[in-house]
């Protein structure tokens, strides 16, 4: 059984009077411990698919199941709790909270758990150590480079040891060197720490680092 099962998922948006179909009856699986790159042109539905898997959005029809839990059928409050436990999400523009230090940003998901302050502290240090920015833990986002910010964002995504790590264009705003470092880090997370990763990217070079590459064209999985 695959970790992520997308079954007959259709998704459409209403824009003014026009209905835009993103997918129609899309089905695909993501295996546990896989590292998948989702590629495709703008508007192909990559980010929408990522949002559906993360439970940030709901399909118009069909089901999305992650680790046996039917995400698409959960109530909003249950979905938030499920996300806190099972999903680590990394955005293209890092989205660190500017008023919090790197340490506090990474600690955010743990504030929703019953961990003690000491346990949280330990986990945050480990996560920051894994991504290699432990020495910047007391810096605010404005004091970090783009690459460092994205590493902190990845640390935030993995700190609660989620079932699934989802990344939406994680290297989109980085220079080549920083992008390489982030991609190497993702490979290490998948290889060494056995994290299941789904990464949306435009960049063919970035996609090469994944174990599996899927192409979406106008909401349809291309061969």
């Amino acid at each position, binding site marked *: 059984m695959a970790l992520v099962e997308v079954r007959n998922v259709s998704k459409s948006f209403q824009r003014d009077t026009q209905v835009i179909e993103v997918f129609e009856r899309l089905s695909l699986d993501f295996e546990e411990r896989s590292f998948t790159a989702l590629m495709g042109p703008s508007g192909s539905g990559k980010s929408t698919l990522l*949002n559906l898997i*993360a439970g940030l*959005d709901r399909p118009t029809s069909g089901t999305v199941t992650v680790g046996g839990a039917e995400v698409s059928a959960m109530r909003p409050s249950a979905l*938030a709790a499920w*996300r806190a436990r099972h999903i680590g999400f990394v*955005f293209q523009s890092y*989205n660190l*909270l500017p*008023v919090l230090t790197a340490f506090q940003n990474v600690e955010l*998901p743990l504030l929703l758990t019953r961990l003690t302050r000491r346990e949280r502290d330990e986990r945050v240090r480990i996560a920051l150590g894994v991504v290699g920015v432990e020495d910047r833990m007391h810096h605010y986002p404005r004091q970090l480079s783009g690459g460092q910010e994205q590493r902190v964002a990845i640390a935030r995504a993995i700190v609660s040891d989620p079932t699934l790590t989802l990344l939406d264009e994680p290297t989109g705003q980085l220079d080549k060197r920083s992008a390489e470092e982030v991609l190497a880090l993702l490979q290490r997370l998948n290889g060494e720490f056995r994290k299941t990763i789904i990464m949306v990217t435009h960049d063919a070079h970035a996609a090469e680092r994944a174990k599996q590459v899927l192409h979406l064209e106008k909401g349809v999985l291309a061969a």
Partner: protein
Amino acid sequence: MKLLPLVFANLRRHTLRTVLTILGVALATFLFATLRSVVTTLNAGTEVASASRMVVQHATAIVFPLPMSYRARLAAVPGVEAVTWANWFGGQYGDGRVFFAQFAIDPASYLAMYPEISVPPEQRTAFERERTAALVGKGLMEVFGWRLGQDVTIRGTIFPGDWTFTIRGVYTPTVRALDDRSFIFHYDYLDERTEHRITPGWYILRLSDPALAPTVAQTIDETFRNSSDPTKTGTEKAFNQSFVTMWGNVQFLMNSIGMAVVFAILMVTANAMMMTARERTGEVAVLKTVGFTDRTLFVLVMVEACLITVSGAVLGLGGAKLLYAGTQFNGFGFLPGFDVTAATLVMGFGIALLLALASGLVPALRAARLPIVQALRHVE
């Protein structure tokens, strides 16, 4: 509790905006406390009135005096235990900028009528014995730096001329609401120096039983109904209230201004909260993605609004309480015993909490209801 650092971090985001909003709330609650204290102080003046005391004044207006012959007739009314009288002097001291009340009284009967006016026995004797002596409130002595035995000259306005008195006694009110800035002297001195014969401005009666008040009032007013000087008799409380209403509908005015100020600050606070919420749309999406529930986000925004308004209320109400108590403010003599009461403080905090609710509710609901995907478009 774990999430409080997040709230404090958000408050530090725009420190100047937060400080200005807190100061706005502080100013509003300070003004509320001040205006409300004017009302409560005026009302306290009526509350200090004794239930067993009544005041007889001219039916037309208090500015018209009553004949001295009424004294004996009032004393003869069943239920009346004692009678005294007083006159308003209305003089000015120095440049006249500091107002204080001056009364011409009959010392023995007046001080017996008002046990709340506490005077050391030897000073009381000295005051009663000397015709030009004055009995001065402790607060008034402090205002002008007067000493016992000092001669003080007051310029008469109703009774023209310079009037020199010797301070022979200093009184201390035993109840806070009683004015400690009055100047009391002998009625006989006023009568003797005035060219025409003066008569009492009003009479004060002590009843043997407060329950007799309606009967006594009716009897007195009936007695003098067809005379050239008809009377209006009422309780001391009603008499004191008549002074309050001479200011117009003070309570309505003060409350209206107070509410207008609070409403204006509500708009300012709500605007600041809305601006803050709009700026954080993307962050709300991130927090939701991380796993924060709608309810948690609602509570976070409300706590932030509460912290702002409660901090402002602590500053404003605490500042008012400390300032007025520290300076012994009395509204230039018009508001003796001016005090920010516990009830006013409680009301102030209640208003601050309502302010938090009103200003925080919309942004809190907005944060809670914000669809993640829509909010993410805001930042992506």
